[in-house]
């Protein structure tokens, strides 16, 4: 039976011009990454200065190192996700522990960790730069992994029951089921979360490359270190170069990696959507090449080969009558005992560690600092909402404006705002502004865009009929806002504001203490407290600061955002 497959129409085997171009790009990418990887493992001793050159010609190399760190972290995030996320979705005992743990880890200020983890990693790789390198990668990992894992877990939990049944009926093994059913089903969410995580982690990559251990500065080659040195030397044009480089890098990885991925993941969606697909240069290129097609189908074949291994049991009744053996009962019981013991040990250890060298009044002092930072976050979210909600609605109601503004807002959200901090610092120093007030906007600089693009998305998805109905009844002015727009965009706004607030907390660690050359501006707040003691390596105080920040973030999440989110889900979701 001879048939023509739509997927590979072989008109000619001869490679074309596009083949050459695409081939070059792929080879180049591999070569560059390999080169950067060899640089990571060079010998190094703590105390040895790693020189960062401010000459812009070094910037592409630094950018490469930074990007490599991100992808290594991403690799581990995915590994973690596939193991832990799947475990949580399939074993209810594991689920009970993993999901709340991740929920908490999500709100932990990542940057505070750096000074603690680096000590561990330097001990692990004593005479190599790998120690600080791993510490930086670990920070990036922690900034990426949680929402990817949670997203994957949620996808697995919502896997339609009939697909599971079909898989059982057709005797798919556990391994096959995971790769052929579960991972593909989770794919659109997975890609989306990876994208969000990558955007968020730019911020941390920049902050984690310049590390201070025991009063010793380590500058890992990368954009973050570059900008740290530029700030130290008050080198304005270097800061500008770094910003430009960053813009280019983000544009490139968006075009080369994410747009193609999103376009590809469309096929994994369960239902047909009329959304406009993002176009990507690389996809256009790919569609024109044949060589890459072969390369692609080679990897696809490899994937199929690996995933169709018949590992694990294949004959599974989905619902067994519950007749648990004594043995499993004991295992489960032991498991809970272990978790309980670990929790107790952790509480005691933490309390002893903190109170060993600190007094109650110091703790109260830190709690007070937390309130200052809370006030900043609340005021900032409020101000940003006042500005961006009307703008977002205006843009969202006009489809042409949306098409232009929306990608820009998303782009700005992924741009590491700490790169532009120096500009603000220069302004504050120059005009002699109040440090307590004017450093605050730095916290929200990077995350305000989440409010904007969520509001745009909300306004754009309002059904046209509703707007027409409002017009028909002559609903105008404040009434229009109150009865139509604000309820309409509420679920989107809550998502945006929640993300923005979470980001602001994290950013406070780098935003409350900023410097430019010899000037160092220090605001009063929890972020400044953590940053200060991180620089001097005072571990009990860092631990206290982080614990208090966790506490605040968790309390606010539970008391403010969670109820608002639930309300949005229940009341304001358009059926």
């Amino acid at each position, binding site marked *: 039976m001879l048939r023509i*497959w739509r997927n590979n129409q072989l008109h000619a085997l001869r490679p074309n011009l596009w083949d050459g171009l695409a081939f070059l790009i792929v080879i180049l990418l591999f070569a560059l990454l390999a080169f950067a990887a060899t640089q990571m493992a060079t010998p190094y001793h703590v105390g040895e200065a790693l020189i960062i050159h401010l000459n812009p010609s070094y910037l592409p190399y630094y950018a490469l190192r930074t990007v490599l760190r991100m992808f290594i972290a991403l690799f581990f995030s995915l590994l973690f996700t596939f193991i832990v996320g799947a475990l949580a979705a399939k074993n209810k005992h594991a689920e009970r522990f993993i999901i709340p743990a991740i929920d908490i880890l999500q709100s932990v200020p990542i940057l505070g960790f750096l000074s603690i983890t680096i000590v561990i990693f330097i001990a692990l790789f004593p005479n190599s730069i790998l120690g600080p390198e791993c510490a930086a990668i670990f920070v990036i990992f922690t900034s990426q992994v949680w929402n990817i894992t949670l997203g994957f877990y949620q996808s697995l939990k919502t896997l339609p029951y009939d697909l599971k049944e079909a898989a059982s009926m057709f005797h798919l093994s556990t391994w096959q089921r995971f790769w052929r059913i579960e991972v593909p089903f989770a794919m659109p969410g997975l890609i989306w979360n990876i994208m969000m995580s990558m955007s968020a982690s730019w911020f941390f990559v920049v902050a984690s490359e310049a590390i201070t251990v025991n009063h010793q500065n380590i500058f890992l080659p990368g954009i973050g270190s570059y900008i740290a040195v530029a700030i130290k030397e008050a080198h304005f044009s270097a800061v500008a170069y770094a910003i430009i480089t960053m813009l280019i890098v983000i544009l490139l990885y968006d075009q080369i990696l994410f747009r193609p991925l999103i376009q590809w993941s469309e096929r994994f969606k369960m239902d047909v959507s009329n959304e406009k697909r993002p176009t990507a240069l690389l996809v256009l290129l790919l569609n024109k090449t044949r060589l890459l097609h072969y390369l692609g189908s080679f990897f696809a074949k490899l994937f199929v080969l690996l995933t169709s291994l018949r590992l694990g049991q294949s004959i599974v009744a989905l619902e067994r009558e519950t007749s648990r053996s004594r043995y499993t009962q004991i295992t489960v019981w032991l498991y809970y005992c272990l978790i309980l013991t670990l929790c107790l040990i952790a509480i005691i250890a933490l309390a002893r560690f903190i109170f060993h060298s600190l007094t109650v009044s110091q703790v109260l002092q830190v709690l007070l600092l937390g309130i200052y930072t809370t006030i900043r976050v609340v005021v900032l979210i409020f101000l940003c909402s006042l500005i961006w909600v009307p703008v977002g609605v205006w843009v969202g109601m006009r489809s042409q404006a949306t098409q232009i503004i929306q990608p820009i807002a998303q782009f700005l959200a992924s741009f590491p705002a700490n790169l532009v901090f120096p500009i603000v610092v220069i302004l504050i120093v120059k005009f002699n502004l109040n440090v307590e007030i004017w450093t605050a906007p730095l916290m929200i600089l990077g995350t305000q865009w989440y409010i904007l693009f969520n509001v745009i998305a909300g306004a754009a998805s309002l059904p046209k009929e509703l707007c027409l109905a409002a017009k028909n009844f002559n609903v105008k002015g404040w009434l229009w806002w109150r009865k139509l727009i604000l309820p309409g965009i509420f679920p989107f706004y809550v998502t945006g504001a929640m993300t923005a607030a979470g980001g602001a907390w994290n950013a406070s660690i780098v935003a409350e203490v900023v410097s430019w050359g010899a000037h160092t501006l220090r605001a009063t707040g929890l972020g400044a407290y953590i940053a200060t003691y991180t620089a001097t390596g005072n571990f009990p105080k860092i631990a206290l600061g982080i614990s208090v920040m966790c506490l605040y973030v968790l309390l606010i999440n539970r008391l403010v955002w969670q109820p608002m989110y639930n309300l949005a889900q229940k009341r304001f979701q358009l059926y």
Partner: protein
Amino acid sequence: MSEKLIELKSIKKIFRNDPQQELLVLEDVSFSMCEGEIVALLGRSGSGKSTLLRIIAGLIEPTAGEVYYRNKKVNGPVHGIAMVFQSFALMPWLTVLQNVELGLEALGVKKEERRQRALKAIDIVGLDGFESAFPKELSGGMRQRVGFARALVVEPNLLLMDEPFSSLDVLTSDNLRNDLLELWEEGRAKLKGILLVTHDIYEAISMADRILIFDSNPGKILHDLPVHLPRPRDDELPAFKNLLDKIYTLMTSSSSDIEAETKIDLSYRVPDAQVSELIGLLETIEYEEAEGALDFSYLAEIVQLDVDELLALTEVLDILHFTKSQDGGIHLTEAGEKFANADILEQKKIFARHLMQYIPLVKRICDVLRKRSNNKVSKKYFLAELEDYFSDEDAERVLRVIIEWGRFAELFAYDDNTGKLSLENPE
């Protein structure tokens, strides 16, 4: 007598959500099916017939009793049994060809053979030319054809079908049914038997050699009817119509038994019936009714409802004493007549009176509300009470239906934000 394909021996299934809560879904179900037979399991939704199908498929383990496939006990999914799903259950990320190949891949069939067999199966179900399409590009009927191809490609002896046509429109399902029958008659698919779950009487008669009528609460086989009509079966023939009427009679008498045999109490599983549907049906009956009772088969035709939906409505009307169904026919009671002719405000009053009188749960809610000083009670209170009788999901559903009725009758009000029920007119 040809060989036994499957045999069920006193299957019983209890669902347990938590230790205190047990739901008897199937009780003492026994039957066997021989090679060369198409058997239809006909019953109303929630009667446990889909659960039974999954027990036969080895997807669910029975609480008691055994399933034998060709004299071998079924302990999990068996080679030789394939299934077609109501919702198709196709992998959206795989093309038609890949979807069909999936089952073979899991069996470890070599690539060449796999492709050849998949193409043949696609050919058999008439999907030629769609091999590289993704399921979302296809219409419902075409998707179900993929479902058939995927099931047939593993060359099963027994094909299980769980309401395979019920999510398709009338024309498409007719077309697909005929194609499947043709395939069966010509013996192209090497099938030895088909077991079909359906709630569509018409579908059961036009396909099956035997119809097993299922009763609900708990599910059990009520009647085992052989169908001796020549194929293709013309629904205009008197024999077809007689059988249709007979089955309606059997099914309605089984449902009206509920009222006669068991007293209706809090544990009564209220069917999904919206107020507007109930009123609409009453008014239709009033309009159509000439003398004596109205035939169910005729009523089903004019209101364009399948038996499942229709019986849910008439059951409620019977219980509320607005109608009386017997022997496959239905007629209005005096109260029903009055209701149908009343205006909406009057209808509300009559409805309220009958709810209070005949639905114990409504009365119970009103009593509890009256006892409270502020006349307000959380919905959770009643849910907890209902969970003694139903699964959580069913309890939610029953209460939702009751709340809708109560709101219409202006007996009580409900605030979804606070989740509180309150008395409409506190005394």
